[in-house]
């Protein structure tokens, strides 16, 4: 492909990774990137200082508002808090969990009714996984056995376990071989100063696509153009097979602007990518939306139910604490072929908070004795699990007609429910997590709500399939029956596996970048 103009919708990890790869591979290509949200400053000292002195994260203002979507409440689907609509997208507050999916995750259709096999295998993606681990600065153990690494090394050593992890090692070891391992974690070990403010790092030690976008601009100059506050609302077709470009809504004038391009890549996340296709209606060619002749766009949305099991350390006189702001120990014991038909689970000892609210206790004049007593008697330890939910063809993302959301994007309707099989898996694995805590001699603390379904892990609204009869994109992520429209987001994954999807998405983006840059 020589001298083409590539339009990329979105500015998150998928968008920036495709852009970088295409620009590197083909020096005659130019990229125009469209982000619905505003600019985002990384490593801004003032923002970080406000985070520390007020406790309010700078990311909060870019989250969805409850009024932006209509979601059936009983489904437990949590949109608010999951995504960020801003330059760099959700990686700006990403936790950094970066495990690979396992080979069997690409063949879920073999064992579960209603699931599809991917059109690519783990082996197809293996070397892209390695590249993605380097791109995202992942620390991890190169010695782990599953999934196979084929000799590939992480760029950084694994982050050492914390002393709190040590409380669980014996209990986990009793499950069987290789029941725990260092969490593969995106952290630049040369920059991290363990500030405990990982959601907004003052040193840029965690990958953010916002910083990557800035690098693209400085590296590629005029070959890369970023359009902020430019919500793409539709793909504009020249013929049934060929897109002419994209239509961008102007948030101020409420008019629309057309941008032409040779290739369009929709990298706007699972929800917005589907909505853009649904909104790309042409009476003659695509009356139900682009790529939606068989009603698969927006359907099958599935995500990870989040499990939480909490325990209290009986006597924390040694003052064990969460030493860093991220998990250091993970387990793939239940994320295995044996559990695939029943619902796999990946879990980690959560490490998000370091001594929360101590300052607030002093300010509110709790006594030091009260604080000490709480530390000794009430220090908590938490396991968090992600379950591969069972698919449901009635789970859907749809557009809401009428006024747009504050982001300039159409409002969203989501219909979501957990299947009975998912609920059974949830109960099964909650027992597993609580069993680990009990076996470690910790006092279980029952939770009223073990956690909802995470929007930021949602997949499958434009799932990869052999033909349009089953899905939306082909193995190259091209929308079926089109020549030049691609989707590169979690939306293309037919199923989520049991792990955070970001690394897999980055690997898919590198693969697409190679294709488009060839």
């Amino acid at each position: 492909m020589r001298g083409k103009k590539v339009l990329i919708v979105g500015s998150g990890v998928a968008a920036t990774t495709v852009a970088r790869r295409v620009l590197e591979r083909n020096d005659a290509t130019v990229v125009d990137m469209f982000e619905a949200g505003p600019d985002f400053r990384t490593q801004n000292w003032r923002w970080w200082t406000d985070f520390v002195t007020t406790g309010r994260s700078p990311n909060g203002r870019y989250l969805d508002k409850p009024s932006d979507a209509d979601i059936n409440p009983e489904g437990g689907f949590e949109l608010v808090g999951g995504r960020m609509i801003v330059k760099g997208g959700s990686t700006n507050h990403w936790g950094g969990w970066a495990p690979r999916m396992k080979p069997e995750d690409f063949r879920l259709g073999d064992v579960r009714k209603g699931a599809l096999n991917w059109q690519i295998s783990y082996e197809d993606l293996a070397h892209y996984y390695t590249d993605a681990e380097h791109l995202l600065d992942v620390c991890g153990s190169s010695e782990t056995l599953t999934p196979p690494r084929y000799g590939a090394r992480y760029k950084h050593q694994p982050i050492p376990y914390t002393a709190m992890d040590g409380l669980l090692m014996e209990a986990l070891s009793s499950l069987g071989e290789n029941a725990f391992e260092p969490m593969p974690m995106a952290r630049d070990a040369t920059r991290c100063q363990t500030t405990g403010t990982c959601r907004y790092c003052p040193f840029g030690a965690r990958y953010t696509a916002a910083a990557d976008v800035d690098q693209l601009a400085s590296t590629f100059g005029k070959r890369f153009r970023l359009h902020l506050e430019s919500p793409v609302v539709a793909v504009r077709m020249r013929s049934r097979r060929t897109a002419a470009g994209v239509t961008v809504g102007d948030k101020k004038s409420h008019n629309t602007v057309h941008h032409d391009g040779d290739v369009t890549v929709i990298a706007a996340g699972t929800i917005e990518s589907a909505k853009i296709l649904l909104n790309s209606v042409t009476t003659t060619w695509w009356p139900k939306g682009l790529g939606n002749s068989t009603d698969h766009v927006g359907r099958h949305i599935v995500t990870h139910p989040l499990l939480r099991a909490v325990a209290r350390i009986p006597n924390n006189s040694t003052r064990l604490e969460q030493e860093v702001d991220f998990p250091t120990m993970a387990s793939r014991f239940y994320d295995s072929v044996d559990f695939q038909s029943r619902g796999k689970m990946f879990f980690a000892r959560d490490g998000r908070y370091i001594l929360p609210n101590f300052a607030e206790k002093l300010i509110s004049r709790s006594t030091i004795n009260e604080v000490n007593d709480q530390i000794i008697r009430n220090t908590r330890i938490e396991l968090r699990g992600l379950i591969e939910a069972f698919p449901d063809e009635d789970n859907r993302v749809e557009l809401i007609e009428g006024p747009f959301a504050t982001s300039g994007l159409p409002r969203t309707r989501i219909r979501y429910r957990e299947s009975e099989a998912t609920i059974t898996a949830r109960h099964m694995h909650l027992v597993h997590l609580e069993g680990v805590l009990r076996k470690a001699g910790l006092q279980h603390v029952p939770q009223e709500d073990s956690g909802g379904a995470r929007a930021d892990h949602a997949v499958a609204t434009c799932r990869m399939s052999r033909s349009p009869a089953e899905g939306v994109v082909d193995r190259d992520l091209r929308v079926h029956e089109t020549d030049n429209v691609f989707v590169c987001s979690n939306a293309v994954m037919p199923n989520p596996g049991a792990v955070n999807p970001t690394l897999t998405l980055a690997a898919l983006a590198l693969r697409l970048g190679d294709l488009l840059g060839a």
Partner: protein
Amino acid sequence: MKSISRRYLLRAGLASAFVGMIPKVALGADYSDDEIATIGPDARDDGPYRAEALGLLDAWGVSELQAFASTAIAAWGFRDQDWDDRKDIASYASARLPILLDTKCNTTAMKATDYQPSYLAEYESAARLVAAAKVRFRSEAGAFCHLMFADRSDRRLSPTSRVVRARTYVFDEITRHILASGGFRTLGFVNYSGYFGYSLHDPRSFRRSSK
């Protein structure tokens, strides 16, 4: 207006030597008219007053707030730890605090109102309250005790009153900042949100675990 007892201050964790220095008059004192007065006619309760006013806090204001921070450190007994060579607390008032004040006043990177509201007017007002309280109670300890611990639920205090704003934007934030700058170590912990620990693989790591 509820008065404060020395026993209460001791239970709240203040160092006994410090509590002994607080003059009796500071324990039961009512709010002054200036403390209850609104910070300005167009003050709002959802952000700092005159958030668009950029500029550096003058030397007098800095020194008043440095005195407040030093008194807070003495009051709670925050100190650097023998097992480490760091001097985070010893140098807090002279090194870290001025950076905090500068950062929140001189927000030149973006417009002041664009999520970077300037605290200049709040700092100037708080410094004025500190100076007045020191005169009124004839000591820094008395001023600190009154400004931090006098009844926060007093019905005469509106969200725009000077003392409420000084607590919200200045005194409480400085307290959090001191804790995050190393004060937490006094309670025996090794890391805290906002603290610059060491790098992930540094042999001097803050970690308790050697595994």
